[in-house]
């Protein structure tokens, strides 16, 4: 009898220990996955904001300040520059840069595209995991404007979205707000 009790007791204790270890592992795994998700998302968001900021900064090189922007909508912007954004060098030809949210949904959500003369630039011309974008524009006095000839900076509000690894029905969203200055438009004297 005592042998049976010993066996049962050890089985119960072993099972409890095993369950504790498994629970611990699962929790740890989830924590690490969250950390990894957060880290990779931060990296992605950092790359996106760096790219957007750089692209905006190169707007208007060699162009009269009032002629830089051609489209300034809340969900897209188009401007001119002598900078070859694709090659990241000064160019002899005028380029038209178009930034907009592509509504054709993919598995990764909507796509933010940066196009130069109608072609998506590489390697960061397709920006994934974007759900929403909104532009607000400001003039030289930092007042809101919608006049293409007055735009000197843009506020960009981005919503990133990724499906949750644990619950696909509840995607994880991260918002970021940045302000990009058209540095080269300022340098032209405007």
């Amino acid at each position, binding site marked *: 009898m005592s042998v049976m009790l010993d066996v049962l007791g050890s089985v119960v204790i072993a099972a409890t220990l095993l369950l504790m270890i498994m629970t611990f592992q699962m929790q740890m795994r989830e924590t*690490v996955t969250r950390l*990894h998700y957060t*880290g*990779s998302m931060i*990296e992605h968001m950092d790359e996106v904001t760096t790219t957007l900021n750089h692209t905006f*900064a190169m707007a208007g090189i*060699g162009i009269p300040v009032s002629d830089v922007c051609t489209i300034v909508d809340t969900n897209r912007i188009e401007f001119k520059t002598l900078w070859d954004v694709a090659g990241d060098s000064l160019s*002899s030809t005028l380029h038209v840069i178009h930034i907009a949210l592509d509504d054709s949904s993919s598995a990764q959500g909507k796509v933010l595209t940066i196009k130069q003369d109608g072609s998506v630039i590489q390697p960061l011309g397709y920006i994934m995991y974007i759900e929403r974008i909104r532009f607000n524009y400001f003039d030289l006095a930092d007042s809101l404007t919608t006049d293409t000839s007055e735009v000197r900076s843009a506020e960009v509000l981005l919503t990133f979205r990724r499906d949750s690894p644990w619950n696909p029905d509840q995607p994880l969203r991260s918002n970021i707000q940045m302000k990009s200055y058209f540095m080269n438009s300022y340098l032209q004297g405007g």
Partner: protein
Amino acid sequence: MGRAVLMFVLLMTTIFASILVSLNDRIAGVPDVLIENQLKKESENVSDFALRNAIRNAGSVGFLDTYLEESTFTGILTFTQSFSGFTIGNSVIDSLRYSFSESQDQYKVESFIRSSLQGYSVARHAEMAFDYPYITALVTRPSVIYLEMERLNLLPWLFKDNNYVPDSNQNGYTGTFGGFTLLSNTVPWGGSFSRYCAKFDGMNDYLIVEPQIGPNGADSINTDKSFTIMTFAKIDKNGRKYHEDEQGTLLWIPSEPSDATLRNKPSAGIWYDTNDGSMHFAITQDDEDNTMLEAVVPHTRTADIYDWLLFGTIPVFNIFHYEYPWTSYALSYNHGVLKAYINGVLRATVTGSDVRAYPSLYGLTMGRRDLRGSGIDDEDYKYFCGVMDQGGMHHLALSDMSITAWHDNVMNAATIRYIRD
């Protein structure tokens, strides 16, 4: 029973190990992102600091006096300030490069930064141009040789070695004048981008760029499968008196100047032929027959650059030559396709087989053909009568757009200011 327990333990251990490995990978990835971000931010800040200092230095009298005291601000003056161990945090400032064009007020500065932290490395290159000539800042500037003729060679017959123009690319392809000139080989013409141009009397003036043969036996101005040659010129509408049918060589890269069968077939050349009133753009291909691809474009000369005294033996330079317009001439060769441009506009295309141009190791000549050996008369040289400026060679075939841009920007003397950080 014992075996079953053993198998169970092994299975559990394997699952446990795989979970640990997976966890380890994920945990290891988190600091990487943080390190990379930290490094980027740091290098950006150091780059800003370096560029701000470079901009301040470029406008500082003290700095210019210290480092560029003996220099004159003619043409493109470039100075690189290199550092050894200039470390800020995890970043190293390698160098700052200053380029001045014609004056202290027209400059471009560049900073070169490296950063590294825990196995990650980032390099940053920032630059800012302020009223810098647009053509100079562009890649369409001829990269191998660029003779902008920005040097006044007064009394070259009196002062020894006072008969050259420097290569603006600083590749050392100095152009040396030949022939006799009383006052100077170069003359002012009033342009805002270029102040001087070279004059050629059609009698014995020429400019030669000697080759620089490297250790592998090749010269970097050697013609290969892809390159461009170009120049601006005003071709005298009459030519040298009594020798009107002799004139016309603008640019000439010889194939074999001593070989009677090849000496008149240049590796690359641009010339005007008085017999057919046309510009000739030619390439000799490196095939079995040494095929010469030639584009012939009818052309009208309008400039009046020289008058002649004593039966065409004494040239008299027209000091009002600047009233006549400049014309640019360019030739590009790319894998068997020769293109001819006048004033930045594509005028002719000739297609041959996809072989390289005939290799040349004899440099480049402006103003006459490079002919060597015996049995050559003066008239064979086809001396050029007129003025030339902005002559050069690019190491690749420039696009139509780039050649148009080169022409437009020389003519318009545009300056540009921009910042990239």
